[in-house]
């Protein structure tokens, strides 16, 4: 009986914990969104920090990221083409390539890439800022941490993931063409027709919203996880671990919901 009560108690505590974390993230997002609407937020200082964030999150890693996207795209295009040939479905190869790579795989991998590189760094930095009282020092100087530290990271994350996924998608489309038709211009017309058929307004809007949600997940969750850190240095790795687990689940959840909405 005691075991049952303890199990229910522990489950209840976990559920309450999840709701508390979810509410904290939601409240933070609402606060950030309201701040976005304030004209005072859009000053030169915030804009400079946003530019810096986009540079560190997207521009600095661009060559590595494009190389990685190229290798992954080449591998998947080769697998899809050879499978399509084996089953005599070559005419569907281009559509399959675009759907698998551009709509699903590359945005997902982009989000993982940015989460591992920037999300973990943001989580660690915010946790250290909290533990070292740097946020209190900023508040004492009347420099709003939300405006100076957090909002630029959220905007930078969204802009970076959308842009990087877009660039990777364009690269995959180009590589798909070269793999299917080679340097021959004859395939241009059917290939562009396939692209136009796939990318209707609904799919395009869905792709942009999905990438934006990925961008938000890889920045918002690490920031809130960092802010939850108790003021003890040894809790920083625990905070990063929790934050990155939440980011992973959020990315998977966004992808699953997007697939369900599209195909079920």
């Amino acid at each position: 009986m005691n075991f049952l009560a303890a199990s229910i108690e522990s489950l209840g505590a976990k559920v309450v914990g999840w709701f508390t974390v979810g509410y904290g993230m939601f409240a933070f997002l609402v606060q950030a969104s309201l701040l976005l609407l304030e004209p005072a937020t859009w000053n030169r200082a915030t804009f400079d920090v946003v530019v810096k964030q986009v540079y560190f999150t997207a521009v600095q890693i661009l060559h590595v990221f494009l190389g990685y996207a190229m290798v992954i795209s080449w591998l998947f295009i080769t697998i899809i083409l050879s499978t399509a040939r084996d089953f005599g479905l070559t005419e569907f190869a281009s559509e399959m390539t675009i759907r698998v790579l551009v709509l699903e795989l590359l945005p997902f991998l982009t989000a993982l890439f940015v989460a591992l590189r920037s999300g973990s760094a943001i989580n660690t930095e915010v946790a250290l800022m909290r533990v070292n009282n740097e946020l209190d020092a900023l508040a004492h100087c009347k420099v709003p941490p939300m405006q100076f530290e957090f909002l630029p990271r959220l905007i930078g994350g969204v802009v970076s993931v959308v842009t990087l996924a877009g660039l990777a998608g364009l690269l995959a489309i180009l590589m798909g063409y070269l793999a299917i038709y080679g340097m021959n211009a004859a395939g241009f017309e059917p290939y562009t027709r396939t692209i136009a058929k796939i990318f209707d307004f609904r799919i395009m809007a869905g792709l942009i919203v999905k990438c934006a949600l990925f961008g938000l997940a890889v920045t918002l969750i690490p920031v809130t996880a960092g802010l939850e850190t108790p003021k003890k240095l040894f809790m920083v790795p625990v905070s990063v671990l929790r934050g990155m687990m939440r980011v992973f689940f959020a990315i998977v959840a966004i992808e699953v919901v997007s697939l369900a909405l599209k195909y079920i």
Partner: protein
Amino acid sequence: MAAVAALPDDVARVAPDLPLRANLSALDNIALIPLYQRHCSAAESVRLAQAMLERLGYADLAPLRDPDMTPAQRFATKLARALILRRPRLVIDHPGAMLYDVPYPAFIRQLAERAEMTGTWEIFDFGWNQALYRA
């Protein structure tokens, strides 16, 4: 220390519990204030921050980040940040905890002479350090 932390908003504090932003240079830590509070341009904020460091005799600190500074340099940067806030009162909270590499009452006196402050500087220190200030 809790009483000092609860001081009103018109007090600029230099305190061990109010560190510099670790990933910003000394100059950027100071330039943040005019940038966000007075909505100065980035160039003007940097100019004001540099002028404040020069006034304290620490112009060469500008590119250094917190972990690369000596305790005295860190204190000077924190002081510059507090001075640029332009608040009527300045409280230096437990200087001994920040200035363990220099004889600190003399060091603070030296900085105060250079800074040409118009407001009041107050030092909150442990009673047993009183003898240091009489020297």
